[in-house]
């Protein structure tokens, strides 16, 4: 077939008053998804002539269709993908008809790239799910449908492709459609349109096909043109403040995108989390003040009262404000090679706020193929399930089911800054509203006065055998002699009591450190100088322990000895055991040690006598003002 030149003027795309539909395409590697999209772009004239010329050349070189154009090459963009013949990342495509403008999220179907599908689905209003007519519903079809429903998409087009290879059999098509409707109903997908297709030959793609006289429904493009778009302006007013707009002392505006409802000057609003009430004075834009704005618009509001509002606060309808909570049940999709660890400190971004967060033990993971609930202690890459989330302060939110933008969050690793997960808020946990820190009359300051020194945590970290316990003992002796009130938490002692139910997996190590951090926090509140001597191999947990006490109260001491040295010392014979394979997850051998990047104190035990090292630490405390110098 010769490549189409454009015999007549293409349909005028993108007139002024057309609307926009965002959809996602999902399918298995061989379902012909790239061909389908390439063909849609080609047939709606979204492709310029020179790209078509490139396609002809590329088809001969890389194509799988002989001399015919391989439409899949139009969308398989990166050279890494072409070599492997798979789509490895989500790509966005654009085309238009006279009625509607489309943004397509083209997502890979390959198993290990589920995170890309979730990414594409997060902004989509509709999903096109491809099925190979010869194969029917596959495990992947179920997985994609589940993820689509999880992300709140309620409209699916089931594209039964490669109908030419089953002789345009109506029975085959109807059997697949029937199976799928049963499955989709379980997921709450209520709008399913099934269409028999051949993407390669263009049947039922733009118009009706002569091969399927038994099919009277719309073509794929007609279905995409008639599908309802989301109406985001329903619901009460929500506008997270992205940026406080202060050109001069006289003007104080709050800039953000309206994520729900509509607003007019004079409307009563409540600002969360403060709960302060006011009225909208003006809706300010570059093009002049507006008398109304609605969801989807980016505006700047001014209020009639001078109230303190900062980035991340949410301006809500006074009569129907968002809820406020710091603990939630959530659905979580994990997107990192490093598993989610309960208790590990992460960052969560939601709305225009980024804050500290930790997850509890998963309630369950979901087998995305069978929808069964499975017991889980962590979430691995591409796993999803339900887990409670605790934030370090309360934030305004709506359930994801009510407002996608007010109920979604991403999880960011504190160390790598990677986006490692994405989640949906279900509801606030009751207990989050009920627990308040008990304010006590004899407080830390009273105890500091009585003790004559400030409390702190001396957190010793280092490999097993580096000398942490020995050094901690020496420091405690010196402090005691100076009249300080101290307590030493030692690895082995804690393991026999507080943490005796824990093993040495990464998840258990995190929980162990969390417990120690909590105990240290209470002891600091009691006014003590707390010494801890634990391997504590991960940055993230040490940061968590640091975050539990006030600024300046956490002193990280890197007890640094090279692996060769500690392995040679091997006071407890543990390295030898680990090398023989009798001890799993041993730090330095088959479990990593992340050395502190900027410890307050760095002691190289191979070069420093223990008493000198201890003296250095005590001098540091005096310099810091924790202790008074000895008279």
């Amino acid at each position, binding site marked *: 077939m010769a490549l189409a030149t454009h015999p007549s003027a293409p349909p005028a795309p993108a007139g002024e008053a057309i609307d926009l539909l965002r959809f996602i395409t999902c399918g298995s590697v061989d379902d012909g998804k790239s061909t389908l999209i390439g063909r849609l772009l080609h047939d709606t004239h979204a492709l310029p002539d020179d790209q078509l010329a490139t396609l002809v050349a590329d088809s001969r070189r890389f194509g799988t269709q002989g001399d015919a154009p391989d439409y899949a090459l139009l969308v398989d963009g990166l050279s890494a993908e072409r070599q492997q013949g798979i789509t490895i990342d989500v790509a966005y495509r654009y085309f238009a008809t006279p009625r509607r403008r489309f943004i397509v999220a083209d997502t890979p179907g390959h198993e290990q790239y589920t995170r890309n599908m979730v*990414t594409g689905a997060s902004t989509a209003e509709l999903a096109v799910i491809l099925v190979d007519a010869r194969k029917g519903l596959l495990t992947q079809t179920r997985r994609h449908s589940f993820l689509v429903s999880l992300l709140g998409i309620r409209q699916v087009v089931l594209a039964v492709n490669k109908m030419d290879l089953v002789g345009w059999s109506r029975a085959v098509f109807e059997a697949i459609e029937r199976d799928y409707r049963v499955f989709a109903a379980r997921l709450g997908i209520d709008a399913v349109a099934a269409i028999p297709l051949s993407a390669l030959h263009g049947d039922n793609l733009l118009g009706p096909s002569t091969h399927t006289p038994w099919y009277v429904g719309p073509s794929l493009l007609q279905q995409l043109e008639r599908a309802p778009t989301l109406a985001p302006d329903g619901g009460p007013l929500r506008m997270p403040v992205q940026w406080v707009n202060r050109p001069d002392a006289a003007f104080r505006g709050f800039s953000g995108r309206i994520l729900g409802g509509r607003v007019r000057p004079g409307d009563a609003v409540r600002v969360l989390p403060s709960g302060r009430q006011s009225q909208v004075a003006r809706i300010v834009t570059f093009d002049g003040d507006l008398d109304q704005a609605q969801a989807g618009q980016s505006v700047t509001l001014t209020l009639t009262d001078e109230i303190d509002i900062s980035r991340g606060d949410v301006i809500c309808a006074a009569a129907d404000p968002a809820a406020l909570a710091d603990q939630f049940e959530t659905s979580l999709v994990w997107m990192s090679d490093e598993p989610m660890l309960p208790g590990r400190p992460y960052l969560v971004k939601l709305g*225009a706020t980024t804050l500290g967060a930790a997850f509890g033990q998963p309630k369950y993971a979901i087998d995305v193929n069978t929808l069964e609930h499975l017991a889980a202690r962590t979430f691995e890459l591409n796993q999803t399930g339900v887990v409670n989330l605790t934030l370090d302060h309360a934030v305004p939110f709506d359930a994801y089911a009510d407002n996608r933008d007010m109920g979604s969050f991403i999880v960011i690793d504190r160390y790598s800054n990677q*986006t490692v997960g994405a989640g949906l808020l279900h509801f606030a946990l009751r207990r989050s509203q009920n627990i308040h820190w008990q304010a006590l009359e004899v407080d830390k300051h009273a105890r500091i006065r009585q003790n004559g020194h400030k409390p702190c945590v001396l957190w010793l970290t280092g490999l097993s055998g580096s000398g942490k316990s020995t050094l901690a003992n020496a420091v405690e002796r010196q402090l005691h002699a100076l009249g300080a009130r101290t307590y030493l938490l030692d690895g082995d002692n804690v393991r026999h009591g507080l943490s005796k139910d824990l093993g040495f997996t990464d998840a258990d190590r995190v929980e162990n450190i969390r417990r120690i951090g909590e105990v240290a926090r209470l002891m600091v509140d009691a006014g003590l100088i707390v010494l801890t001597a634990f391997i504590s191999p991960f940055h993230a947990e040490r940061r968590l322990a640091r975050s539990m006490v006030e600024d300046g109260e956490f002193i990280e001491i890197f007890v640094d000895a090279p692996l060769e040295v500690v392995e040679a010392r091997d006071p407890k014979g543990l390295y030898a055991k680990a090398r023989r394979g009798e001890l799993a997850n041993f730090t330095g051998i088959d479990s990593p040690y992340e050395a502190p990047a900027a410890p307050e104190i760095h002691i190289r035990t191979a070069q420093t006598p223990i008493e000198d090292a201890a003296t250095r630490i005590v001098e540091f405390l005096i310099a810091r003002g924790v202790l008074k110098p000895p008279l």
Partner: protein
Amino acid sequence: MPLTHLDRLEAESIDILREAVAEAERPVMLYSIGKDSAVLLHLAKKAFFPSRLPFPLLHVDTTWKFRAMYALRAQVAAEDGIELIVHVNPEARRLGINPFEHGSSLHTDLWKTQGLKQALDEHRFDLAFGGARRDEEKSRAKERVFSFRSAQHRWDPRNQRPELWRLYNARHRPGEEIRVFPLSNWTELEVWQYIEREAITVVPLYFAAERPVVEREGQLIMVDDERFPLREGETPTLRRVRFRTLGCYPLTGAIESTADSVAAIIQEMRTAPTSERSGRIIDHDGSASMERKKAEGYF
């Protein structure tokens, strides 16, 4: 009143601009003088109104732009509230790098790619806005709105952060940088529709006029100043041409056209579709050449 698709694109771009500025320490906007830069600058003025732009503009100059581009740059720089930084790679200037003697690859690498890295390092910018769109070129289709670059300004297509909903992750360590593309979801047609709707000033070279050109390797190259070395037997002829994109004048092909207004350009795009980058000689350096340039730090 439902929002038109231009309204939605505008609102999304403003949302991206504000979010990036709120999360960055030292943002900057890359300004290339072309139509996408003009739209981006217009959107930025809208995003922060009535405040002034909370960042400077940066033009990485090659000294080989069209004269009409320098004229518009001067006009923009004179506007109230605009701070324009012009960076010229001193090394490229010292070596006298030019597209005629050194070829388009070396020319682009030294003036643009290396020049941009120098400017970002010198001013310690941690976030840079660019006007790239996903519909421009195949390797751009997978570009994130917030694109992470290493401390060496490198782009690793396999190590980009997933972007969900409208939650952009701009976190980075000192020395690392985020490039942000607020026009990601726009197409060329919509850029022109928006220029028409908002009456945005663009370089006159986009509009058809009689211009002196020579034909080389199938491209119409405009003889914009006396530095253009004519080959033997080559005489510039006046032809009615315009430009789809604007770069260095010796590397930018014109198209024959009679479209002398924004409306005519939009009409032309509907009837004679070729891609805007077809006139960019640097894109033809080899298969997947844009992907490679991006990995090296090109915008």
